[in-house]
């Protein structure tokens, strides 16, 4: 990024924007016609158009949630949002064919370099659609399908039809209805029986235009005994007006399968991030959501696992950072439907400069689920008096054999801790970054090295000038 750009956006590193170069841009605002136009443009089968229309009507009728931050939610002006924007000519397999400005954006974000070094596949979405997509040949040869969702629907319609909305129906909530109505892009992944994908595959989501709505839809199916690690990152330019990101992600882990889904969300602080994520874990399957929320104006996101098969394991490890003008309302849900299922939730949040962090979690254990284990740990670190942290844990345990542990802590950085580190040559900012990175360490440990380094740098940047 140029010095000029850096000055303009302050601390947020990914806040530059390119000149908009849309080949198709819908007028702002939402109507049944907009929904039909999106579907027609993509040449979709009728059943998909129908479900979109139903979802649209549900969205219009459904009231805004009355929890989280209703105040902020009510400031979203749905008429000002652009619901579909196509840049470039389609999805390229070679970075050289991606339009120059867009390619430069992903270069700055380090995506092509990371792909060469350590990723099994990459999809890069710019506004509404993927502009680049590639998967390693050896994975393809093993039958692994990794496509953007539009291509997934075209090439694997039967699978998509079977699972689309099966985990998260459009009626689930107002924003899952909105996503189902206007979805575009996202990832479609199928891992065949027994195939272990060793290298992570990554999707990168970039919003560039102002007042943009990005509604990607992701569906991952890991067949029996297979494993996959999917990583997504997201950034957007800093604008004075708001953008909306509302994704739906559905995961299916067949018996014995393993899915790890890692998110590094670093939206600029004019983006509403309202996302529904849920997975079903069958017998002895594992689903892990690794979720970092570092940016956005308001995030409401509660990754869930339905532990449907005996012996299934679910895990949500999340960190949230809320600075000035930010509200992270994040958490997790675990539903134990079968016996001998286990779940673990570790939530860590940091608030500063008047930011607000909330942990909102729900764990249910059904009556017939014997010998389940539940472990919930929530830690909050508050860096100043202006900031706020709340926890809203809910537990509904209907089977007495369940072993349930719940710990919560709220701490503040002490002057003595900072002083101790300063006495070893670290400036105030560096000392605070060491403390904060230490606080996030149990999370960072779960990340591939490259992301761990990036996240630590990101947090160090957020800590600059934070002690008055």
């Amino acid at each position, binding site marked *: 990024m140029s010095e000029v750009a850096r000055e303009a956006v302050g601390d947020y590193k990914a806040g530059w924007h390119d000149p908009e170069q849309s080949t198709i841009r819908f007028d702002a605002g939402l109507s049944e016609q907009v929904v039909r136009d999106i579907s027609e443009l993509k040449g979709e089968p009728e059943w998909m158009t129908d479900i979109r229309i139903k979802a649209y009507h549900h969205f219009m009728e459904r009231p805004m949630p009355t929890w989280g931050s209703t105040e902020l939610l009510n400031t979203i002006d749905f008429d000002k949002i652009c619901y579909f924007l196509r840049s470039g000519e389609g999805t390229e397999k070679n970075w050289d064919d991606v339009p120059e400005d867009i390619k430069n954006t992903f270069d700055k974000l380090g995506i092509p370099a990371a792909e060469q070094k350590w990723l099994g596949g990459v999809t890069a979405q710019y506004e509404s659609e993927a502009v680049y997509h590639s998967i390693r040949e050896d994975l393809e040869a093993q039958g692994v399908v990794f496509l953007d969702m539009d291509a997934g629907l075209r090439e694997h319609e039967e699978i998509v039809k079977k699972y689309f909305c099966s985990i998260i129906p459009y009626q689930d909530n107002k924003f899952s209805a909105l996503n189902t109505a206007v979805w575009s892009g996202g990832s479609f992944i199928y891992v065949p029986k027994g195939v272990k994908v060793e290298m992570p595959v990554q999707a990168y989501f970039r919003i560039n235009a102002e007042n943009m709505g990005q509604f990607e839809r992701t569906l991952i199916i890991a067949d029996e005994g297979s494993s996959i690690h999917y990583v997504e990152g997201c950034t957007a330019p800093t604008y004075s007006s708001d953008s909306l990101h509302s994704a739906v992600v559905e995961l299916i882990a067949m018996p014995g399968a393993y899915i790890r889904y890692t998110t590094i969300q670093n939206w600029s602080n004019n983006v509403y991030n309202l996302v529904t994520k849920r997975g079903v874990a069958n017998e002895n399957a594992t689903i892990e959501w690794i979720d970092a929320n570092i940016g956005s104006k308001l995030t409401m996101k509660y990754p869930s696992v339905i532990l449907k098969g005996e012996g299934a394991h679910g895990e949500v490890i999340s960190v949230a950072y809320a600075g000035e003008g930010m509200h992270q309302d994040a958490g997790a849900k675990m539903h134990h439907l079968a016996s001998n299922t286990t779940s673990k939730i570790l939530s860590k949040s940091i608030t500063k400069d008047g930011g607000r962090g909330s942990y909102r979690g729900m764990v249910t254990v059904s009556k017939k689920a014997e010998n389940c284990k539940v472990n919930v740990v929530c830690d909050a670190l508050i860096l100043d008096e202006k900031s706020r942290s709340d926890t809203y844990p809910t537990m509904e345990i209907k089977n007495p054999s369940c072993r349930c542990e719940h710990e919560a802590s709220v701490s503040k950085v*002490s002057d003595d801790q900072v002083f101790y580190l*300063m006495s070893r*040559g670290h400036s105030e900012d560096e*000392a605070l970054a060491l403390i904060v990175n230490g606080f996030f360490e149990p999370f960072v440990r779960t990340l591939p090295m490259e992301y761990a380094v990036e996240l630590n740098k990101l947090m160090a940047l957020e800590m600059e000038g934070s002690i008055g």
Partner: protein
Amino acid sequence: MSDAPVLEIRDLHVSIGDVEILRGIDLSLAEGEINALMGRNGSGKSTLALVIMGHPAYEVTKGEILLDGENLLEMAPWERARAGVFLSFQYPQAVPGLQVGNFLRKSVKALKGDDAPSAREFRKQLNEACEALNIDRKILSRYVNDGFSGGEKKRFEILQLMLLKPRIIILDETDSGLDIDAMRTVAAGINSSVNGSACLIITHYQRILEYVRPDHVHVLIDGRIVASGGYELAEQLEAKGYEWLDQEASP
């Protein structure tokens, strides 16, 4: 090595809130010399250590501290550290999630900049220091002072001392909470680090001074140095306690 003082404290008055804790301290620390500062609990010993390091809770109301003739009080704590001041804390702080190995490497880099030893040389020094202090290398993957016993914390302070190689060493009750074997080990570590540096040992027992022999001994009572002498002063205190000096302290 010269006898010119590197750290000079002149008429230092220090308060916390409305309470004056140090009431006019004069003390010089010269290179290659070990000074001991003795006194009861609450006499102001730790305050002096923390003020030299620059703790923000204390206010210097009068006097000065000079390092090589420069005004130390104008420097931030990390600048003092980079100038060569080291404090072994009485109560080292825990930093959960920060690994000891990582912290040590980062601290050496912060202090020495381009002069920091190579990764390989650093590892060598680290191994030697751990061995000398009888510290299990597993400590390197533990978190800084997190769940450490009292003795482990003190040994870890001396491990930092040995790796950071400061010019001004302040040891604040490093001997408290150590059994006799641990004290011998720690004292050996201190002796190997003192070489050429200026050192101030703060303690209320004479015991550690048997192993780290001071050149000068000072007694602090109620915020003032009331007596100074050689090692024999420490022996007198051990035999007679502090009471005989109390009159000296009254204004």
